[in-house]
C-alpha cells in the first residue's frame, strides 16, 4: 500500500529547492540590475533553511522509502553548511563585484550546490547519495569556469571536471559492486547484509576499494589530490573559498554514511586503506606546502594535510574517532573560511592578495586583521590555545586509543613540518616591512564577520567543551 512519506524530514531541502527556483526566475527576469536582490534572496534562503533545521532539531528517522534520513548528525551538518555558505557569500561579494563576476548565475549555482550538499548529508541510500554528490559537483565545476576570460580558471575547471568525473565513476563502480554482493543500495540493508555475512567478503572489499578511491578524490586525499592545488589556485578566490569550506563537510557526511554506517563490520578492510591515505596526505601535504609562494596553493596543500588528520579520526572506527573527525571537519571549515576570507579582504580592484608576499608588513598596515590572520595561522598549525589544537588533539587521541601509535607519531612530526609554512605567513606579516599601502575595500559587515570568525577560533580554543560535547552526542 502506498504511504505518504514524512515530508517534514526533508523540509529544509524542499524549502531550499523552492527558493532556488524563485532565485532562478528573478535572475532570468531582472537581469544585471537585480544582482543585489539575488544576493539578498540567497542569503535569506540559507538563513531560512538554517532556521528550519534548528526548528525541527531533535526527532528524526527514515523517510521516502528508507532512502532519506534525518538524525542529529544530519541536523548538525546541515546547520553548519548553511552558516558556512552564508559567510562564504558575504565574504565573496566585494571581490565578485570588483571583478564583474557578481552575476545572478553565481548565486543560483551556489544555492543549488548547497542543496546538493544537504541531500548528501541526509542520503541513506547510495543513489540518493550519488544524486546529491553530482548536484553539488556539477554546480562547483560551473562555478570555477565562470571567469570565462581567465585561462587559468578555465584550465582549473577542466581539470576539476575531468578528475571529478573519474572520481564519480569510481564511486559508482564501487556502489555497483556492493549492490551486486548485498543486493541492496540502502545503507541499513547493506549494513545488515554485511553483518550476517551473506556476501562474499573478497568482492565486498573490492567494492570498498573503489568507494574509498571515490571518497578520497572528493576529499583530496593523497594520492588522489592532484586536482586540488590547481583548482584552488586557478579558480577565482571566491570560488576557491566556496569549494574549500562546505563541500568538505558534505564529504565528511558521505564517508560516515558509507564506511561508518554501511560498512562498519568491514572496518578491518577500510581501516588500512584510510591509514595509507591519511599518512600520505599528512606527509605530502605538509612537505609540499613549504615550497609554495602562492598563498592559495599553500592553503591547498595545507587542506590536503588537514584531510589526512581528519581521516585519522575516521579510520579509528570508534564512536570517539568519528566525533573527533566531525569536530575536526567543523573546525577546519571555520579556519579555512577565515584564511580565504583574509585573501578576499585584502584583494581589491585589479589586485589579488594571493601571494604570501602580499601580506608583508600587514601588522603595520592593518594591525587588527594581522592579528586575526595570526590567530588563524597558529590555529591551523595546531598551537594551543586555539581551536585547531583541540581538533588535532582529539584525532590523535582517537588513533592512540586504538593502538595505532605510529600514525599518531607521523601526525605530530608532520605537524611540526607544517608549522613552518604557517609561521612564514606570520613572519611576513609581523617581521617584514610593508611594501604597499592600501585601504580595505570590503564593507563593514564583512570586516565584522571575518573578525568574529577568527575570534570564534580563539574562543573555541579557550572553551572547546561545548562543541566537543555536541560532536560526541551526535555519535552516541
Amino acid at each position, binding site marked *: 500500500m502506498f504511504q505518504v512519506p514524512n515530508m517534514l524530514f526533508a523540509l529544509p531541502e524542499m524549502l531550499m529547492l523552492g527558493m532556488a527556483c524563485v532565485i532562478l526566475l528573478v535572475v532570468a527576469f531582472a537581469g544585471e540590475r537585480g544582482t543585489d536582490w539575488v544576493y539578498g534572496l540567497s542569503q535569506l534562503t540559507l538563513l531560512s533553511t538554517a532556521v528550519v533545521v534548528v526548528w525541527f532539531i531533535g526527532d528524526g528517522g527514515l523517510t521516502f522509502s528508507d532512502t532519506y534520513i534525518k538524525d542529529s548528525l544530519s541536523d548538525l551538518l546541515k546547520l553548519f553548511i548553511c552558516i558556512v555558505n552564508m559567510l562564504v557569500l558575504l565574504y565573496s561579494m566585494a571581490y565578485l563585484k570588483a571583478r564583474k563576476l557578481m552575476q545572478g548565475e553565481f548565486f543560483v549555482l551556489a544555492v543549488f550546490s548547497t542543496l546538493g550538499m544537504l541531500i548528501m548529508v541526509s542520503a541513506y541510500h547510495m543513489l540518493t547519495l550519488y544524486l546529491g554528490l553530482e548536484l553539488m559537483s556539477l554546480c562547483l565545476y560551473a562555478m570555477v569556469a565562470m571567469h570565462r576570460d581567465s585561462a587559468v580558471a578555465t584550465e582549473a575547471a577542466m581539470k576539476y571536471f575531468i578528475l571529478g568525473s573519474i572520481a564519480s565513476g569510481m564511486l559508482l563502480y564501487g556502489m555497483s559492486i556492493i549492490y551486486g554482493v548485498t543486493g541492496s543500495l540502502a545503507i541499513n540493508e547493506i549494513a545488515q547484509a554485511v553483518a550476517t555475512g551473506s556476501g562474499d567478503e573478497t568482492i565486498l572489499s573490492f567494492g570498498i576499494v573503489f568507494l574509498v578511491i571515490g571518497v578520497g578524490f572528493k576529499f583530496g586525499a593523497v594520492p588522489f589530490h592532484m586536482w586540488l592545488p590547481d583548482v584552488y589556485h586557478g579558480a577565482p578566490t571566491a570560488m576557491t573559498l566556496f569549494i574549500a569550506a562546505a563541500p568538505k563537510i558534505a564529504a565528511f557526511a558521505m564517508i560516515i554514511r558509507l564506511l561508518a554506517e554501511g560498512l562498519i563490520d568491514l572496518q578491518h578492510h577500510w581501516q588500512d586503506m584510510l591509514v595509507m591515505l591519511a599518512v600520505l596526505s599528512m606527509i605530502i601535504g605538509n612537505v609540499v606546502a613549504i615550497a609554495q609562494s602562492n598563498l592559495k596553493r599553500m592553503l591547498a596543500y595545507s587542506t590536503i594535510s588537514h584531510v589526512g588528520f581528519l581521516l585519522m579520526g575516521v579510520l579509528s572506527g570508534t564512536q570517539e574517532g568519528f566525533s573527533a573527525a566531525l569536530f575536526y571537519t567543523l573546525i577546519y571549515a571555520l579556519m579555512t573560511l577565515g584564511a580565504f576570507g583574509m585573501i578576499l579582504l585584502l584583494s581589491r580592484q585589479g589586485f589579488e592578495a594571493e601571494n604570501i608576499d602580499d601580506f608583508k608588513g600587514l601588522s603595520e598596515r592593518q594591525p587588527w586583521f594581522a592579528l586575526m590572520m595570526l590567530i588563524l595561522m597558529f590555529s591551523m598549525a595546531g*598551537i*594551543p590555545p586555539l581551536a585547531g589544537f583541540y581538533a588535532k*588533539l582529539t584525532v*590523535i*587521541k582517537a588513533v592512540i586509543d586504538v593502538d595505532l601509535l605510529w600514525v599518531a607519531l607521523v601526525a605530530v612530526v608532520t605537524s611540526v613540518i607544517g*608549522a*613552518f609554512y604557517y*609561521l612564514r605567513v606570520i*613572519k611576513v606579516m609581523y*617581521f617584514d616591512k610593508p611594501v604597499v599601502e592600501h585601504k580595505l575595500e570590503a564593507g563593514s559587515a564583512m570586516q565584522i564577520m571575518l573578525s568574529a570568525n577568527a575570534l570564534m577560533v580563539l574562543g573555541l580554543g579557550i572553551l572547546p567543551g561545548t562543541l566537543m560535547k555536541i560532536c560526541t552526542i551526535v555519535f552516541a
Partner: protein
Amino acid sequence: MFAELPLLSLLIWLPIFGGMLAIMLGDQRAIMKPFALVVAALTMLLSFGLYAGFDSSTHQMQFVEKLPWIETFNIFYHLGVDGFSMPLIILTTISTLLVVVAAWEVIQHRPSQYLAAFLIMEGLMIAVFSALDAVLFYVFFEAMLIPLFLVIGIWGGPNRVYATLKFFLYTFFGSVFLLVALLYLRHVSDSFAILDFHQAGLSLNEQTWLLLAFLIAFAVKVPMWPVHTWLPDAHVEAPTGGSVILAAITLKIGGYGFLRFALPIAPDASLALDWLIISLSLIAVVYIGFVALAQTDLKKLIAYSSIAHMGFVTLGLFIVFDIFANASTGSGAVLAIEGAMVQMISHGFISAAMFLAVGVLYDRMHTREISAYGGVVNTMPKFAGFAVFFAMANAGLPGTSGFVGEFMVILAAFQANFWFAFLAATTLILGAAYTLWMVKRVFFGEVANKEVQSLSDINRREFWMLAALAVIVLLIGLWPAPLLDVMHASVEHLLTQVSQSKL
C-alpha cells in the same frame, strides 16, 4: 587569609588580562607603562601570598582549584602548587617585574605590545607551573611559544627571523612528542590528571619510550647538549627582556618537566637510562664551559654559561639513582634534588641579572662584542660594581646563590661516583675562567676607546633593578634555608616515588 582567594587563577589571569588591556591602551597614552608596572607588581605581591600561605610540612598540592573544562574527555581546569612549583612561580613574577622596569624608556618600537607580550607570557608560565591536568599543562606549555616567538621576531636583532623560527620549530618539535606521551598515559591511566599519571603502572618498555619522549621535549627546553643550538641564536637576537625571560624561566620549565613528569612517571626507565642523561649533563658542564670560553659576544657567552649551569640541574636530578645504589641513607639524594632546585632558582636570578647588565651596556653602546669594550669601570663605577658581583655569582663564589646549588650537587655527586663529582667540579675552574676573563676584558684595564670614554653611569631605575637582584642573590647565598624548607617535603615525596619500582 589567602586560603579563600583563588590565588593561582588570579596569578594567571591578572597579567593576561592586564596585558590585553595594555595593548588596548596603546602606545600613545602615558598611562600605559605605569599600568603595566602596576599589573606586574600586583602579580608579584600576590605571588608572595603563595609563600605566606604555603604549608611546607606536606607534599600535597596546595591552593588547589578544580573546575570542569572539557567534560567530554574529563579534562579539568585543575591548578595547585607544591614545593617545586611555588618557588618557580615567585621567580617568574619577580623576573617579569624586572623586565617591565628594564623596558621602561628603552623600548621605543610599539612598547605597549612589548609589555603586553611579557605580561601575557607571565600568566602562561605561571599556569604551566601550576597546571595539574596534562592537557591544561600542554596548552600553556605551547601557548607560551607564541608571545616569545613574536618578541624575538619583532624586537630582535638583525638575524632575528632565523633565530625565532629556529627557536619555535626546535621547541615545537620537542613538545609534540610530549603530547603523544601524555595521550598515551591517558590511554593507560584513563585520566588526564598528572597525579594519576604518577600512579600508572607501566612496563619498562613503556616507561622507556615515555622517558625518551619526555627527554626530547624537556631536553630541548633545558637545553641539554646536543639540542642546545637554538639557545645561543635566540639569546643573541632577542631583546633584553626576551633573553631574561628565556634564561630565567623558560629553561626552568625543562627542569620542572623532568621533576613533574619524567622522574615520577618513569622511575625504572630513569634508572635504566640515567647514564645517558648524566653523560649529557656532564658534557654540557665541561664541553659547553670550554665553548663559552671562546665566545666574543657577551650574550653568547652568557647563553653558553646558562647551558653549562643547567647541566647541573639535570645532573642533580638523575644522580639520585646512583646515590641509592651506593649509599644506604637517602640524604645524598635529597641533597642532589634540592641542589638542582636551588640551582634553577639561583640561575634564574643570576642569568636575569647578567642579561639585564648586558642590556644596560647595549643600550649605551649598541654592541655586544667584548672587544668593543675595555675599562668600563672608569666611566661606570656603580654599574661595574654590580656587574662584577653578578659575574662572581655566576662563577659560583661562596656567599652568593650560585655557590649553594652547585656545591650541593657536587657534594651529592661524590656519593654517586667520584668522577661525576670531579667532572662537575671543573665548572668551578671553567666558570671562573670564562666569567672573570670576560670581566677583565670588558670592565678593567685602560679605557679602550672614545665610546667607552663617553659612557654615563646607570640611572636610578637601572640601579634599583640591579640592586634588587643583587639582594636576592646574596640572600639565597647566605641564607638558603627558607627556600630549602618549602621544597623539603616535596623532595622527600619525589624520592619515595622514584625509589619505588613500578615493575
